[in-house]
């Protein structure tokens, strides 16, 4: 296979797909599968045969549309219709009706359609552009939509410096949480001395409540592979490691298959598309350690050691895997790259805000009407996300707080709902972008208990290497145990604040530095609940002061 062959694969596949009037996309990602997606897929395959329309219908197994709360979800896309129809809560029983009415008679079944289509209005799908549109197990599907044409463009017409220039011009910032400039990082690795150089793609996604990277890998694995290829070409790396947590079996399977397919048409290997560029990818599996997502810890884990962070400098750009220059990027960052190469950095820089360009994927969960995965332009407000896209709070309850950025994010109150979502505004408010988790909390939840839960999580996941994080978090947890069981004094609030800021200032890595965020933000915005627990020994949500129910 050479550079022009990708174009011919695309043309062939487009021709093949034109042969079908309807495309039925059944979401078969981790969200819909437990709800019966495979039964629905089988039912569609049977029904199109039963009604004799299998020649005009392509039934495809796809990734996630983001509407996980109404799964199994199915999209019917008919040639000539402007908008595809999204069906919610599809069951085996509903399938025949959809095929009979929609496919055979041309009348979409209105009462089965997704009710909250407004959810999509404020979204901007860039990273998730192919999610739910392609069958992730077919490389041709990706190529037909322009896939791998960015690496072809790089190899045919761009120098490595040219590729870095476009990425710099896009002003893309790392989506793993810290928001470091991607172009700058690439430049550092490209200029670093040492050979070989490595790319590490981070799909550890250890933050509970976050599933954006999983969804991306399950829906569009080739976008990650193409991003890694371009990163390799630009920085001079010949080997990539894709580090994925083993809690995601379906994503692992999807990626394994995608890598095999890419190798088969020489997109990976000793001579990529018959050019002198050499690049291959190996998967590495995590084993349940939150800290492994930290950039120096992930290196240790890829090398087969305990995932413990180390002080920087030296930075991984100069001394990473086995002491060699290494580029570490989150997979969401990498999935942006092909679009940037194809459309140019200045095109990308127009999306989002001036300081934070592009879009961000968020997992929207907790007490919210439309939980699921969304992708929004940077700078959108929390209110728009929670109330317009998320549809507000269910069961007539009242909004209390939104937790942004995972277990080491911050709990923000109603008064901050008009905050624009970008790295800098969130940090100023005491939260972090993190990997993009938004958990909504209503008035039946206790902020002290919530903060205790996160502290417990971070304490559990602390690797134990540095004292502030190891001992500090344990001390904070003890104080919380006291406050929630009636064994506390007013001074505890001051001790919490002081210990929290010590941990933040003195910890070695990002885990410890951000772990006190929930403690400090709940103290800042919800102090009245702490006072209630300490002075009146009551919990308005009824979560604390419970007797242990388990007997030996």
């Amino acid at each position: 296979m050479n550079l022009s062959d990708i174009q011919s694969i695309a043309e062939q596949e487009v021709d093949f797909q034109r042969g079908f009037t309807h495309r039925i996309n059944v979401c078969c990602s981790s969200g819909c599968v437990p709800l019966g997606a495979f039964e629905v897929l089988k039912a569609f395959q049977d029904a199109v045969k039963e009604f004799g329309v299998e020649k005009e219908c392509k039934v495809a197994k796809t990734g996630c549309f983001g509407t996980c709360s109404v799964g199994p979800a199915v999209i019917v896309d008919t040639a000539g219709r402007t908008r595809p129809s999204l069906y919610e809560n599809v069951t085996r029983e509903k399938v025949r009706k959809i095929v009979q009415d929609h496919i055979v008679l041309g009348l979409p079944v209105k009462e089965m359609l997704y009710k909250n289509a407004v959810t999509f209005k404020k979204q901007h799908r860039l990273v998730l552009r192919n999610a739910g549109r392609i069958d992730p197990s077919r490389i041709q599907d990706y190529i037909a939509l322009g896939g791998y044409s960015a690496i072809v463009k790089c190899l045919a017409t761009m120098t490595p410096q040219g590729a870095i220039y476009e990425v710099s011009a896009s002003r893309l910032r790392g989506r793993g949480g810290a928001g470091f400039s991607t172009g700058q990082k690439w430049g550092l690795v490209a200029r670093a001395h040492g050979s070989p150089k490595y790319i590490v793609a981070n799909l550890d996604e250890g933050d509970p409540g976050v599933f954006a990277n999983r969804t991306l890998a399950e829906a569009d694995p080739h976008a990650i592979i193409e991003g890694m290829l371009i990163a390799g070409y630009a920085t001079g790396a010949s080997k990539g490691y894709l580090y994925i947590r083993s809690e995601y079996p379906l994503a692992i399977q999807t990626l394994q298959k995608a890598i095999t397919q890419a190798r088969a048409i020489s997109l990976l290997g000793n001579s990529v598309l018959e050019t002198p560029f050499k690049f291959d990818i190996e998967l590495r599996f995590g084993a349940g350690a939150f800290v492994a997502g930290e950039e120096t810890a992930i290196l240790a884990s890829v090398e087969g050691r305990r995932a413990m962070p180390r002080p920087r400098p030296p930075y991984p750009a100069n001394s990473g895997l086995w002491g060699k220059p290494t580029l570490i990027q989150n997979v969401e960052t990498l999935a942006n790259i092909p679009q940037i190469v194809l459309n140019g950095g200045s095109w990308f820089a127009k999306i989002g805000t001036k300081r934070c360009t592009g879009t961000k994927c968020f997992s929207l969960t907790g007490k919210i009407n439309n939980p699921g995965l969304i992708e929004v332009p940077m700078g959108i407000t929390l209110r728009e996300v929670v109330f317009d896209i998320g549809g507000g709070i269910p069961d007539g309850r009242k909004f209390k707080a939104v937790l942004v950025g995972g277990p080491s994010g911050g709990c923000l109150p109603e008064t901050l709902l008009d905050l624009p979502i970008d790295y800098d505004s969130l940090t100023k408010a005491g939260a972090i972008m993190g990997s993009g988790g938004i958990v909504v909390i209503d008035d039946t939840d206790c902020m002290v208990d919530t903060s205790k839960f996160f502290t417990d999580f971070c304490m559990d996941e602390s690797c134990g290497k540095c004292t502030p994080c190891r001992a500090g978090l344990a001390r904070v947890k003890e104080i919380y145990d006291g406050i929630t069981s009636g064994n506390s004094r007013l001074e505890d609030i001051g001790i919490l604040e002081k210990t929290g800021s010590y941990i933040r200032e003195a910890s070695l890595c990002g885990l410890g530095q951000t772990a006190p965020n929930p403690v400090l933000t709940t103290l800042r915005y919800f102090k009245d609940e702490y006072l209630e627990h300490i002075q009146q020994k009551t919990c308005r949500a009824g979560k604390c002061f419970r007797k242990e129910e388990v007997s030996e």
Partner: protein
Amino acid sequence: MSASETRRNLLEKVMKENGHQQSALLEILHKAQEIYGYLGKELLTDISQSLNLPPSTVYGVATFYSLFKLTEPGEHIVTGCLGTACYVKGVEEIMRGIESEFKVKRGETTHDKKLSLFVTRCIGACAMAPNIVVDEEVISKATKEVVLGKIRVALGGLKVESV
């Protein structure tokens, strides 16, 4: 070939596939756990010899990562997701329910070795929280009644009378 020889050969095959690379330790531990069900002391010593690593290093890695099991799990495994979304959606109530009905604490196995109760920090199915995994089956939007019922069925319905 005896069962233990078969397992031994499987493990040797995994070692070969990974070229006895020390950096593939995690992959090898994953496969070893798949083959043997858990990582016993002898097994870890074997692996350390094959990879030419000190046993302390292998033991250190095996204990560092929470997915590796160092003791034999029960016949049935129930794993509760204690991620943020599941917590907010009340997984704790379900966990307490399991603990009290089946007399097992999280992280432990019942005396009759029938049931192990584990926790995990997020399986990434947060939009359908709370999630509980009973053996291989993910139960999404779980309720206490459904989960307890599933476990009773998995255990052979033996516990039904005692409720």
